[in-house]
Protein backbone atom coordinates (compact mmCIF):
# COMPACT_ATOMS: atom_id res chain seq x y z
CA UNK A 1 0.00 0.00 0.00
CA UNK A 2 1.51 3.32 -1.09
CA UNK A 3 0.36 6.84 -0.24
CA UNK A 4 2.19 9.85 -1.63
CA UNK A 5 1.53 13.57 -1.29
CA UNK A 6 3.56 15.38 -3.95
CA UNK A 7 4.31 19.06 -4.50
CA UNK A 8 5.30 18.91 -8.17
CA UNK A 9 3.83 17.50 -11.39
CA UNK A 10 3.74 13.70 -11.40
CA UNK A 11 3.13 11.10 -14.09
CA UNK A 12 0.26 8.84 -12.98
CA UNK A 13 1.28 6.06 -15.36
CA UNK A 14 4.85 6.06 -14.11
CA UNK A 15 3.62 5.86 -10.51
CA UNK A 16 1.29 2.96 -11.31
CA UNK A 17 3.94 1.01 -13.20
CA UNK A 18 6.38 1.65 -10.39
CA UNK A 19 4.15 -0.25 -7.96
CA UNK A 20 3.17 -2.86 -10.51
CA UNK A 21 6.69 -3.95 -11.37
CA UNK A 22 7.10 -5.19 -7.81
CA UNK A 23 7.84 -8.83 -8.39
CA UNK A 24 5.37 -10.03 -5.72
CA UNK A 25 2.43 -9.02 -7.90
CA UNK A 26 3.53 -10.79 -11.08
CA UNK A 27 0.88 -13.19 -12.37
CA UNK A 28 -1.26 -12.72 -9.25
CA UNK A 29 -3.41 -9.76 -10.23
CA UNK A 30 -6.06 -10.13 -12.89
CA UNK A 31 -7.67 -6.73 -12.42
CA UNK A 32 -6.43 -3.17 -12.06
CA UNK A 33 -8.90 -0.36 -11.55
CA UNK A 34 -7.49 3.13 -11.89
CA UNK A 35 -8.93 6.58 -11.39
CA UNK A 36 -7.12 9.75 -12.44
CA UNK A 37 -8.39 13.20 -11.53
CA UNK A 38 -7.04 15.92 -13.80
CA UNK A 39 -7.33 19.68 -13.52
CA UNK A 40 -9.89 21.14 -15.92
CA UNK A 41 -9.68 24.63 -17.39
CA UNK A 42 -13.32 25.29 -16.49
CA UNK A 43 -15.45 24.97 -13.35
CA UNK A 44 -18.96 26.15 -12.48
CA UNK A 45 -19.18 27.86 -15.85
CA UNK A 46 -15.95 29.86 -15.50
CA UNK A 47 -12.58 29.53 -17.16
CA UNK A 48 -9.90 28.59 -14.67
CA UNK A 49 -6.27 29.63 -15.13
CA UNK A 50 -4.65 27.85 -12.17
CA UNK A 51 -5.35 26.22 -8.85
CA UNK A 52 -3.69 25.98 -5.45
CA UNK A 53 -4.23 22.89 -3.35
CA UNK A 54 -3.83 23.40 0.37
CA UNK A 55 -3.82 20.45 2.77
CA UNK A 56 -3.49 19.62 6.46
CA UNK A 57 -0.13 17.90 6.49
CA UNK A 58 -0.14 14.82 8.66
CA UNK A 59 -3.91 14.55 8.85
CA UNK A 60 -4.03 13.96 5.09
CA UNK A 61 -1.72 10.97 5.40
CA UNK A 62 -3.62 9.69 8.44
CA UNK A 63 -7.02 9.90 6.73
CA UNK A 64 -5.80 8.28 3.52
CA UNK A 65 -4.23 5.43 5.50
CA UNK A 66 -7.51 4.88 7.28
CA UNK A 67 -9.44 4.82 3.98
CA UNK A 68 -6.99 2.31 2.51
CA UNK A 69 -7.19 0.10 5.61
CA UNK A 70 -10.99 0.01 5.45
CA UNK A 71 -10.92 -0.77 1.72
CA UNK A 72 -8.52 -3.61 2.43
CA UNK A 73 -10.88 -5.05 5.03
CA UNK A 74 -13.90 -4.79 2.74
CA UNK A 75 -12.43 -6.17 -0.49
CA UNK A 76 -9.79 -8.63 -1.64
CA UNK A 77 -7.06 -6.19 -2.59
CA UNK A 78 -3.51 -7.21 -3.49
CA UNK A 79 -2.14 -3.68 -3.53
CA UNK A 80 -3.29 -0.06 -3.78
CA UNK A 81 -1.77 3.30 -4.57
CA UNK A 82 -2.85 6.87 -3.89
CA UNK A 83 -0.87 9.84 -5.18
CA UNK A 84 -2.28 13.31 -4.51
CA UNK A 85 -0.87 16.62 -5.61
CA UNK A 86 -0.64 19.75 -3.43
CA UNK A 87 0.57 23.28 -4.17
CA UNK A 88 0.19 25.20 -7.43
CA UNK A 89 -1.44 23.27 -10.28
CA UNK A 90 -2.13 24.13 -13.91
CA UNK A 91 -4.91 22.85 -16.19
CA UNK A 92 -4.31 19.40 -17.65
CA UNK A 93 -2.02 18.38 -14.76
CA UNK A 94 -3.02 15.33 -12.72
CA UNK A 95 -4.39 16.01 -9.23
CA UNK A 96 -4.92 12.50 -7.96
CA UNK A 97 -4.37 8.91 -9.04
CA UNK A 98 -5.82 5.86 -7.33
CA UNK A 99 -4.93 2.37 -8.47
CA UNK A 100 -6.17 -0.90 -7.00
CA UNK A 101 -4.90 -4.38 -7.90
CA UNK A 102 -6.92 -7.52 -7.21
CA UNK A 103 -7.39 -11.06 -8.50
CA UNK A 104 -10.96 -10.43 -9.70
CA UNK A 105 -12.47 -7.32 -11.21
CA UNK A 106 -15.37 -6.58 -8.82
CA UNK A 107 -12.96 -6.04 -5.92
CA UNK A 108 -10.78 -3.62 -7.90
CA UNK A 109 -13.72 -1.64 -9.30
CA UNK A 110 -15.49 -1.34 -5.95
CA UNK A 111 -12.42 -0.54 -3.89
CA UNK A 112 -11.11 2.08 -6.32
CA UNK A 113 -14.40 3.94 -6.33
CA UNK A 114 -14.76 3.64 -2.57
CA UNK A 115 -11.29 5.10 -2.00
CA UNK A 116 -12.00 7.99 -4.36
CA UNK A 117 -15.35 8.87 -2.76
CA UNK A 118 -13.91 8.67 0.75
CA UNK A 119 -10.93 10.80 -0.26
CA UNK A 120 -13.32 13.43 -1.67
CA UNK A 121 -15.37 13.41 1.55
CA UNK A 122 -12.71 13.09 4.26
CA UNK A 123 -9.17 13.90 3.17
CA UNK A 124 -8.30 17.46 4.24
CA UNK A 125 -7.49 19.11 0.91
CA UNK A 126 -8.85 22.47 -0.25
CA UNK A 127 -8.83 23.94 -3.74
CA UNK A 128 -8.48 27.64 -4.49
CA UNK A 129 -9.04 28.53 -8.12
CA UNK A 130 -7.57 31.44 -10.03
CA UNK A 131 -10.01 32.43 -12.78
CA UNK A 132 -9.03 33.81 -16.17
CA UNK A 133 -9.81 37.29 -14.73
CA UNK A 134 -7.16 36.61 -12.02
CA UNK A 135 -9.90 36.64 -9.39
CA UNK A 136 -9.38 33.80 -6.88
CA UNK A 137 -12.04 31.76 -5.11
CA UNK A 138 -12.21 28.73 -2.85
CA UNK A 139 -14.05 25.72 -4.21
CA UNK A 140 -16.89 25.41 -1.70
CA UNK A 141 -17.96 21.81 -1.96
CA UNK A 142 -17.15 18.63 -3.84
CA UNK A 143 -19.93 17.40 -6.09
CA UNK A 144 -21.34 13.93 -5.48
CA UNK A 145 -19.80 11.02 -7.31
CA UNK A 146 -22.41 8.37 -6.67
CA UNK A 147 -25.44 7.75 -8.81
Amino acid at each position, binding site marked *: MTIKIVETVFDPFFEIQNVQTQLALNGKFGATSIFIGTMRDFNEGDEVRAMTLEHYE*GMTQKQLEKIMAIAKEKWGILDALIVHRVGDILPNEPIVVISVWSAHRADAFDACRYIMEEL*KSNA*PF*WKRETLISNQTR*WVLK*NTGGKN
Partner: protein
Amino acid sequence: MITITLRYFASLREQVGRSQETLTLANTLTVLDIWRHVHQVPLPENTLIAVNMEYVAKSHSVCDGDEVAFFPPVTGG
Protein backbone atom coordinates in the same frame (compact mmCIF):
# COMPACT_ATOMS: atom_id res chain seq x y z
CA MET B 1 -3.91 23.99 33.23
CA ILE B 2 -4.60 22.77 29.69
CA THR B 3 -2.56 24.04 26.79
CA ILE B 4 -3.82 23.37 23.26
CA THR B 5 -2.89 24.39 19.74
CA LEU B 6 -5.57 25.77 17.43
CA ARG B 7 -5.20 25.49 13.67
CA TYR B 8 -7.25 26.95 10.81
CA PHE B 9 -7.24 25.99 7.13
CA ALA B 10 -8.29 27.33 3.74
CA SER B 11 -11.11 29.93 3.69
CA LEU B 12 -11.52 29.69 7.47
CA ARG B 13 -7.84 30.48 7.92
CA GLU B 14 -8.32 33.58 5.78
CA GLN B 15 -11.43 34.64 7.73
CA VAL B 16 -9.71 34.14 11.08
CA GLY B 17 -6.60 35.91 9.81
CA ARG B 18 -4.10 33.40 11.21
CA SER B 19 -3.25 29.74 10.70
CA GLN B 20 -2.31 28.77 14.24
CA GLU B 21 -2.44 29.89 17.87
CA THR B 22 -1.84 28.50 21.33
CA LEU B 23 -4.44 28.63 24.05
CA THR B 24 -4.20 27.95 27.77
CA LEU B 25 -7.35 27.00 29.66
CA ALA B 26 -8.04 26.49 33.37
CA ASN B 27 -10.38 23.57 32.63
CA THR B 28 -11.26 21.36 29.70
CA LEU B 29 -13.82 22.70 27.23
CA THR B 30 -15.65 21.27 24.24
CA VAL B 31 -14.24 22.22 20.85
CA LEU B 32 -17.34 24.33 20.20
CA ASP B 33 -16.79 26.24 23.46
CA ILE B 34 -13.16 26.75 22.51
CA TRP B 35 -14.27 28.43 19.29
CA ARG B 36 -16.69 30.64 21.25
CA HIS B 37 -13.97 31.45 23.77
CA VAL B 38 -11.58 32.66 21.07
CA HIS B 39 -13.81 34.14 18.33
CA GLN B 40 -16.53 36.81 18.35
CA VAL B 41 -18.29 35.32 15.28
CA PRO B 42 -20.25 32.09 15.55
CA LEU B 43 -18.64 28.90 14.21
CA PRO B 44 -19.59 28.83 10.50
CA GLU B 45 -22.08 26.13 9.64
CA ASN B 46 -20.45 23.11 7.90
CA THR B 47 -17.15 23.69 9.68
CA LEU B 48 -15.27 20.44 10.24
CA ILE B 49 -13.32 19.91 13.43
CA ALA B 50 -10.40 17.57 14.06
CA VAL B 51 -8.54 16.83 17.27
CA ASN B 52 -5.09 15.32 16.81
CA MET B 53 -5.96 14.83 13.11
CA GLU B 54 -9.12 12.77 13.73
CA TYR B 55 -12.60 14.15 13.06
CA VAL B 56 -14.59 14.93 16.20
CA ALA B 57 -18.07 16.23 17.05
CA LYS B 58 -18.58 19.76 18.38
CA SER B 59 -19.22 18.29 21.82
CA HIS B 60 -15.77 16.66 22.02
CA SER B 61 -13.75 17.85 25.06
CA VAL B 62 -10.05 18.60 24.69
CA CYS B 63 -7.09 17.31 26.70
CA ASP B 64 -3.81 18.98 27.52
CA GLY B 65 -1.52 19.01 24.46
CA ASP B 66 -4.31 18.52 21.90
CA GLU B 67 -4.13 20.03 18.42
CA VAL B 68 -7.59 21.31 17.48
CA ALA B 69 -8.22 22.15 13.83
CA PHE B 70 -11.16 24.03 12.29
CA PHE B 71 -11.71 23.93 8.53
CA PRO B 72 -14.35 24.20 5.78
CA PRO B 73 -15.69 21.20 3.80
CA VAL B 74 -12.83 19.43 2.04
CA THR B 75 -12.50 19.70 -1.73
CA GLY B 76 -9.64 17.42 -2.75
CA GLY B 77 -9.45 14.76 -5.44
